[in-house]
């Protein structure tokens, strides 16, 4: 049995004709923090949901060679095993707080529910702990706020409620899908420090999906870059920022506006209306927009290894 919290290989996710995730592999060790970045629609959320078996079987086809999370084999897991995994072993922060929170239940009831189920706290203690968790994520007047419904919170407060819910079960693994997009940078930096502290204290593993490459620089050990359902590059964080190898990663980093430097126009990619996932990919999926494409790119590149970096690009062959 592997000691990794996440051990995935050959993961494919299909929404009917849309092939959203293709041959995806990922390992996250205990206490490790991994960042997942990539173009909008490249399959990041679809991959994350597959890790907890959250895709409805009837409409979504999920297959993999290995799909193991926190010691549970998702390819053969039973209902009770899945329930222990979700919210207990692994906490998930959804990309969309409004869709993830129940509009008909108070925020206190939703956080308490996790505490009662996964930490077996009695009702009163669960309420106390729920208030403490809300205060921890910076919700002012937390005790009074327990009785409020999600619509009475601001966007960023809802996001923090979801973070509190995900942390409530004291998970060994935290899966976070764009967890701080609705937070101002000052609250964001507090939340990040909170999560990193829990990681240090409990050896919690982290998988962050984010578009914020500046934020990610300080919070992960390793980065996985996706494009059109596939992994394009994976590298230790310093190598990725210091010497990005895949042309897509290079474009991503080149288009960052920075407050500490004078403004300059962004590096633009040729615009392409993408509906990732349709049809077979015979060549490199990035080729139509790649500034460095050459004849070899008509064939799908495998992941080439160079030092600690792996990149799916013929330039590394």
């Amino acid at each position, binding site marked *: 049995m592997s000691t990794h919290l996440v051990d995935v290989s050959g993961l494919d996710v299909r*929404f009917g004709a849309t092939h959203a995730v293709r041959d995806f592999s990922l390992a996250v060790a205990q206490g490790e923090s991994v960042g997942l970045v990539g*173009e*909008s*629609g490249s399959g*990041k*959320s679809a991959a994350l949901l597959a890790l907890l078996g959250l895709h409805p079987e009837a409409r979504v086809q999920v297959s993999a060679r290995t799909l193991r999370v926190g010691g549970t084999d998702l390819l053969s897991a039973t209902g009770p095993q899945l329930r222990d995994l979700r919210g207990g072993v692994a906490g998930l922060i959804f*990309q969309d*707080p*409004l*869709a993830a929170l129940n509009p008909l239940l108070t925020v206190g009831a939703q956080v308490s529910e996790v505490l009662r189920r996964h930490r077996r706290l009695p009702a009163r203690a669960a309420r106390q702990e729920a208030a403490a968790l809300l*205060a921890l994520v*910076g919700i*002012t*007047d937390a005790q*009074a706020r327990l009785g409020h419904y999600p619509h*009475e*919170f*601001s*966007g*960023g*407060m809802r996001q*923090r409620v979801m973070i509190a819910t995900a942390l409530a079960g004291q998970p060994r693994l935290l899966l976070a*899908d*764009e967890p701080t*997009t609705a*937070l*101002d*940078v*000052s*609250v*964001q*930096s*507090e939340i990040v*420090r909170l999560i*990193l502290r829990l990681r240090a204290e409990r050896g919690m593993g982290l998988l962050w999906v984010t*578009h*914020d490459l*500046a934020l990610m*620089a*300080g*919070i992960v050990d390793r980065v996985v870059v996706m494009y059109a359902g596939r992994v394009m590059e994976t590298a230790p964080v*310093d190598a990725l*920022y210091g010497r990005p190898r895949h042309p897509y990663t290079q*474009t*991503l980093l080149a*288009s*960052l*506006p*920075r*407050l*500490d430097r004078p*403004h300059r126009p*962004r590096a*633009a*990619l040729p*615009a*392409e*209306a*993408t*509906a990732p996932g349709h049809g077979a990919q015979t060549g490199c999926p990035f080729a139509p927009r790649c500034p460095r494409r050459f004849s070899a790119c008509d064939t799908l590149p495998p992941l080439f290894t160079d030092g600690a970096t792996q990149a799916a690009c013929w330039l590394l062959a």
Partner: protein
Amino acid sequence: MTGAAPLAEMAGVSVRYRRAGRLSHGLIAIDLQLAANATVAVVGESGCGKSTLGRVLLHLQQPSEGAVRFRGEDLTLLKRAELRRRRRAMQMIFQDPFASLNARMTIGETLAEPLVVHGLARWRDARPRVAAMLERVGLEPGVAARYPHEFSGGQRQRIAIARAVIAEPELVVADEPLSALDMTVQGQIVSLLASLQETLSLTYLFISHDLPLVREFAGRVVVMIAGRIVEDGPPDAVFATPAHPYTKLLVSCVPVPDPAQERARQAAAGNTSTIAAAEAPDHAACPFRSRCPHAMPICATMPPFRHVAPDRQAACWLHESS
């Protein structure tokens, strides 16, 4: 704030929420004028009232006090039918894309609806315009037959943008419209918004947490805490030399894409907390007082909003003596 009459204006606007018998303040005495064709960004602490400000400006929510004007007309006095006619000119991109989209309508219908409702097209001939709009936000026209839940977060956000601009409005309140987009798609949408502004003379109120993006996209920025505006000015100047201590805190928290620098920042921050205190706020005092490194006895009264430069204003007692 030029001589010309503003396109939209809020004067003395307050919003109070009553929850379980307790009163809380969403907005306090807001005065804000938006010049036509301007891009004004709103930044500030999570929960400080930015989304409320946007909704009140478009009259999607009634203020408890104060006037909201569009082209000089007080919207709070308009009848429902008249207000509906004005709607085309004023669009909102909601912070949560699901709130902008109807789960039971296809994307094609969602984008055609504003055209049909405002008599700009019939259902049948809306299709080419819908297809063109989808392409401009980086989506294949073929997706028109799909439903909102079949998209990724960033794709939904782009559909919400497309819906807001397709009927060619005059004022758009965009609440965190680009937060779910990767850098390259974000660049594409920023140029789309800029080119629409040029061709349609659009005015944007742009709510965002992304300070570098605000500097790139907006000509003016307004900084809020706890329901109040505490600083106002051009983003370049405001971020380079913040006049308000809260703005200074915000700027110091902006991450940079450099792992070594970011790790050093984490280490330096240690366990100090800058999050708002747990007790309910005191509205007679400066809203930043409990966290401000410069707080003085006088900060127990709310400082006035004063010019600190010809094109800049701030509400902080530090600027009263000079």
